[in-house]
């Protein structure tokens, strides 16, 4: 018989090895699915994982696009990793992302048609503040009314989506847009644009911010007392309390950080790749980032790679759609498999598999 035996401490080798194994298993199971759909599994897998990086025709375009797509995912996931490490579950990053974009865009458009160089820094601050305040709602309610932050933060996503629709069709609508929904284009107005940092790559300030966040989080977790307290609060809440960690303060800080980074990501997207506030501006980054955070084992470097891997499956998935007409839901199922295998294999880092009779049985 097969038994699971809890390891005294999580296996380091397995926690590094399972992501790789999960990717391999996804390739096998996904390949079987593609084959069942009548596609050549090897070609499909190659297009998804290899072509965006090395195809002669696409790679020059899609390599920097990987960073552009991964940027907001990494930025949000880094923020989420603080709370997730401490056992504080912000599921509403999507809402904080929207409110950050709305606040930043509203700030920039309030001064329209100003082209001041101070405008973009102000928008970044407004975006961060917007996301931060939106995250403070579940935080404050948790600390002072003992509500569940999972539910409150998630439900606030729907409130934020309603605000987004009303902004796009009402209070932020482009006055020159002939009544059509959508704000003015921020990306094409000097001063409010999130500029390309390297010509022709599409790489913008948000990508840079994501890298800075990775480094900052790494230093915090490795070297700083706050990082240690977060870990302690997550692994041993009682011990944390005895050692002087204030749980309320921890909730406010963790939700605040994740809200601020999600808000910043929203601002960078609305002023860059998306360009404007539209009804459907949010593309699910806030939810995908939850996957990225866990795929990266809540570790900053892990999240960096996880974000890039997710971006690769998106861009490679689009190529597979275009070149082989693999249906989009099959690509989504493929991404789902990745998460499934990752979480399923997670058991290996915490448990040892024993085959044979239990000694005491």
């Amino acid at each position, binding site marked *: 018989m097969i038994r699971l035996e809890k390891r005294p401490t999580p296996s380091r080798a397995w926690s590094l090895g399972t992501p790789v194994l999960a990717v391999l298993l996804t390739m096998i199971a996904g390949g079987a699915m593609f084959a069942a759909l009548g596609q050549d599994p090897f070609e499909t897998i190659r297009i998804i994982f290899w072509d965006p990086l090395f195809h002669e025709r696409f790679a020059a*375009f899609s390599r920097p696009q990987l960073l552009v797509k991964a940027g907001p995912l990494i930025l949000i996931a880094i923020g989420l990793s603080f709370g997730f490490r401490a056992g504080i579950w912000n599921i509403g990053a999507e809402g904080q992302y929207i409110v950050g974009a709305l606040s930043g865009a509203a700030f920039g458009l309030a001064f329209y048609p100003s082209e001041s160089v101070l405008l973009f820094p102000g928008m970044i601050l407004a975006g961060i503040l917007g996301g931060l305040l939106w995250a403070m709602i579940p935080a404050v309610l948790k600390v002072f009314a003992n509500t569940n932050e999972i539910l409150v933060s998630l439900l606030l996503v729907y409130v934020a989506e309603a605000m987004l629709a009303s902004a796009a069709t009402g209070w932020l609508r482009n006055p020159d847009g002939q*009544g059509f929904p959508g704000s003015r284009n921020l990306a094409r107005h000097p001063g409010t644009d999130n500029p390309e940092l390297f010509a022709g790559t599409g790489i913008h300030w948000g990508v840079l911010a994501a890298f800075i966040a990775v480094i900052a989080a790494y230093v915090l977790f490795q070297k700083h007392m706050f990082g240690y307290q977060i870990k302690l609060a997550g692994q041993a809440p009682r011990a944390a309390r005895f050692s002087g960690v204030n749980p309320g303060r921890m909730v406010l800080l963790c939700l605040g950080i994740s809200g601020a980074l999600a808000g910043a990501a929203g601002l960078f997207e609305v002023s860059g*790749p998306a360009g404007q506030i539209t009804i459907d501006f949010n593309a699910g980054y806030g939810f995908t980032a939850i996957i990225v955070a866990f795929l990266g084992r809540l570790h900053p470097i892990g999240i960096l790679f996880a974000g890039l891997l997710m971006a690769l499956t998106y861009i490679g998935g689009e190529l597979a759609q275009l070149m082989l007409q693999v249906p989009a839901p099959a690509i989504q199922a493929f991404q789902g498999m990745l998460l499934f295998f990752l979480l399923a294999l997670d058991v290996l880092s915490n448990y040892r598999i024993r085959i044979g009779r239990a000694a005491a049985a």
Partner: protein
Amino acid sequence: MRTLTRLLAGAALATGIAGAASAQDDPFTVGFVYVGPTGDFGWTYEHDQGRLAVEEEYGDAVETVFAESVPEGPDAERVITQMILGGADMIFTTSFGYGEATNAVAAQFPDVYFEHATGYLREHPNVSTYSARFYEGRAVIGHIAGHMTESNIIGYIASYPIPEVIRGINSAYLHARAVNPDVEFRVVWAYTWFDPAAEGEAAQALIDAGADVIMQHTDSTAPQAIAEEAGVITFGQASDMYQFAPRPRVSSIIDDWAPYYIRRVGEAMEGTWEQADTWDGIGAGMVGIGEMTDAIPEEVRASATELMERIASGEYHPFTGPINMQDGSAWLAEGEIADDGTLAGMDFYVEGITGEIPN
């Protein structure tokens, strides 16, 4: 589709990014960007039918590719660019939200033809826009609804408060009232284009409020299912939704993009394509009225068909005065016809509709 891959492999040897667009691979490749899944049986389904019609019309001379469920946010520009790098010579972006992205990519690929649905941005000579005069269809189903309602309450599931939707409500109301002066419209704003749960709830709320006819400007079939249970009638939206005929679905407004797609792809292949802003209706075949079932009395079917024919021939325009605005002020004088500019930006209700347009 395999051939495209082979072509790519060959073409890739010769060309870099800049040359990709102009690389004249034999067959002419047309790319379609869809906002929903091709199986939504509504908006995207009809665009995909248009794509298939193009394939059928031109056979081996044309190759088509598509990407479905492409969000209207930051991803659109990348998807369009990849299509072109993959060899597309012409791109149809089939949702309003792709406007900015379409124009941004068009600037980089001046040799590729771009067609953007339901938008207005044509910043480059290689970008055209096209849309359908859905309000012509709404006039016809409004006419039927006015005749059919017994409670005199017509429920209307609206998506977003944008000119396109407001125009539809006004057109349907005017033609329902023309045949039934007591008719009232109840509008629910669902704030979605496609959300079966939300649409179903909206339909139920309208039925609870006494509506015995449900119109929808959202794309799922959920309201049809709710109406079937409640025994009230509906109209198919975007797609025929014939699976709900003969009741609740008694007729439908169908978006028929095939004639336009076939014509424009042909023009692009011949080199006679020119930038245009197309707004076609029933007459040009872009808006179709689905079969009227025998749940509709024969004389109503006849009068609705007559209305449809008068609109198609151009003899009658659904917005012909006298029409007042909701506040009672005059909009169109006797015999005056609304101009396209006002219609395109319509942000007001006509007289008789109660309630406010949310802001």
